């Protein structure tokens, strides 16, 4: 979806673009490398634990690192930050990559004859074989992947990405047993998706019977996830692959849901700043700040800010 552009920057310009200090010579850089694979003019990211290696580097490189990681090596220049990995990936996202253009059919602003009645924002990239229902609202700078289906009663904020083969607004799976068999409950609710949400490939976001399924700003959803009816997901929450949940579940903000988590009752609420470990079947609500795993009967520890930050540090993604 994204590709690295050809680029050439002076270190002083990178410092300016990122509002960050730099140390060393104002060298030119023109490619990104992993530490250990650097060559002349590389940009690399160095964690504090790799500081000893920096002394050995013979190539002329720019290193993103913390102040304490800076070493005496004339070949190196440094962009210094308390959070170098964030700055490094921000630099890549904002200045070094663009979207590949081979996959999408058109860039839409406001209206498209292909999608009558759809209210587009500006600069919406739409892939091939996409179906979007009349009346759908899609914000600015969204990317709609190939084979995506967006059914009625859906609103999408700005800057959202829906990856290939996902269905937004699929009718929820609801039936009532009657004397005549199973009666389907019509799903006529709404799906509201905030700004900067990413929905992975082959996901299903279900439309509720009534009311709303709500995915708030900056939520990131992995591939192969099912978001059930009336689910509410708080800001900045990450949901990884294989997640499934019963109707009506609420998940707080800044929470991390591991692979294959299942929530089996609509009465359950996952709080803010929680981590739910991979494979957990959640049987009861999780208070704010808790880290839980397996069949949730035990709290392994109170989720201090430090622990949560550490756990989250492994899940940064390029957008």
């Amino acid at each position, binding site marked *: 979806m994204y590709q690295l*552009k*050809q*680029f*050439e920057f*002076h270190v*002083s*310009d990178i*410092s*300016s*673009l*990122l*509002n960050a200090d730099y140390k060393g010579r*104002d060298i*030119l850089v*023109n490619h990104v490398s992993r530490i250990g694979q650097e060559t002349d003019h590389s940009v690399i990211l160095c964690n504090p634990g790799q500081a000893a290696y920096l002394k050995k580097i013979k190539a002329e490189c720019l290193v993103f690192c913390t102040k304490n990681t800076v070493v005496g090596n004339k070949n190196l220049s440094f962009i210094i930050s308390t959070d170098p990995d964030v700055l490094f990936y921000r630099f890549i*996202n*904002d*200045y070094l990559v*663009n*979207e590949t*253009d081979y996959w999408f059919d*058109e*860039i*839409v*602003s*406001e209206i498209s004859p292909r999608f009558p009645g759809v209210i587009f*924002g*500006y*600069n919406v990239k739409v892939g091939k074989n996409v179906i979007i229902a009349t009346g759908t609202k899609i914000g*600015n*700078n969204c990317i709609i992947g190939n084979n995506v289906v967006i059914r009625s009663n859906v609103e999408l904020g*700005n800057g959202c990405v829906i990856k290939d083969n996902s269905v937004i607004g699929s009718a929820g799976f609801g039936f009532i047993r009657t004397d005549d068999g199973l009666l389907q409950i019509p799903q006529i609710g709404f799906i509201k998706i905030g700004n900067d949400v990413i929905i992975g490939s082959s996901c299903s976001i279900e439309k509720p019977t009534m009311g709303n399924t709500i995915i708030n700003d900056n939520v990131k959803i992995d591939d192969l996830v099912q978001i059930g009816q009336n689910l509410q997901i708080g800001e900045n929450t990450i949901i990884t692959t294989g997640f499934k949940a019963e109707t009506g579940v609420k998940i707080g903000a800044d929470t991390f849901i591991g692979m294959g988590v299942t929530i089996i009752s609509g009465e359950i609420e996952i709080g803010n700043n929680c981590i739910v470990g991979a494979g957990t079947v959640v049987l009861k609500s999780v208070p704010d700040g808790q880290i839980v795993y397996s069949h949730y009967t035990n709290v392994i520890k109170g989720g201090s800010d430090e622990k949560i930050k550490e756990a989250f540090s492994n899940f940064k993604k390029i957008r």
Partner: protein
Amino acid sequence: MAGFLDSIIKNQCCKTNRYINELLEKARKEFGEDSSEYKGIYHQYFKIPRNTKSLLKNRRHYEAEVSGTGIPHGIERLYRRSVVLDLLSACAAECVYCLRGYYDKFVLSGDQIKDVARYCGNDKFLQEVLITGGDPMIAPSKLKFLITELASVAPNIKIVRIGTRLPVQDPIMFDTSLFGFFESLKKRFIIEIGVQVNHYFELQEKTREIIGRLQVAGCRMYCQNVILKDVNDNLDALVKLYDEIRYLGLSPHYLFHAVPMIGTDDFRTSVQKGLDLIKQLETCGKISGRAKPFYALMTDVGKVTLYDGTIVGRQGNYILIKTNFKLSDRLLWNPSYKLPASAFLNEDNTITVKYLDGND
């Protein structure tokens, strides 16, 4: 950008890139070091300015930043209908004479961009924005965000102008996703892209390709030029430049006299030489009337095109320039505007400004 003359003089080293270095080498190989082509590149990017005592004091081309409670950073405003939005300070290469060389380093954040767009949408008189920097094309994601925000929250804005040198300074870095982006917005905005070109040799194949693709995307392309000593301050160089500009379908805009800013002494001809050149250019019969620019001065109070009666006198090294700008007007749309020390009001409330002449 950002000529950062202090550091260039201190380090005796210019900030160029691979593309500019290759362009200079190409000029040397094909035309030799005495050629106009070689000098046209060398004097813009490689010539170390002399650190001499100078009458030049300005660190900005003019002071018009809009400030006040709730006013976001990055807005300059001299005119009623248009506003300058500075997105960032960085460029792909540094022209040593750059008029923004002494600006603070900055880049607008997402929230600041939203604030800037809201400011534009809240002023019904505004119809046009000029997005500049730095070079906004080196930050395409921020540029797209700013333009889509304007499209959403500033329905009064009809024209988006973008000032760039990236197609000339480093066309390889130009983000090709911008073509589709501009095309998708051509019903919402008139998009005008201004490219500064000072010598025809800067218009190489890759640059031409980008200009062509921007035109196909529906952008209206225009060109600004500066008379620079030893680059283009002769009739032949200007004729070639304006011919090429016309062949590429670029509209000629201003031909500026070099801005009086710290460090630009070596590049500045006299204003009279510029007048002589524009007169020759427009009457020599060598270029079409469709290719003729306006000769203009970037004064402390804004751009002034030279017409009969614009130059009203001389005070030592300074030329007196009579404008039709009115201070009372300026204060209407930019209450923080202050008349610079080099300017005074005439009886009819218009502004006359002193403009430092150059030397031939």
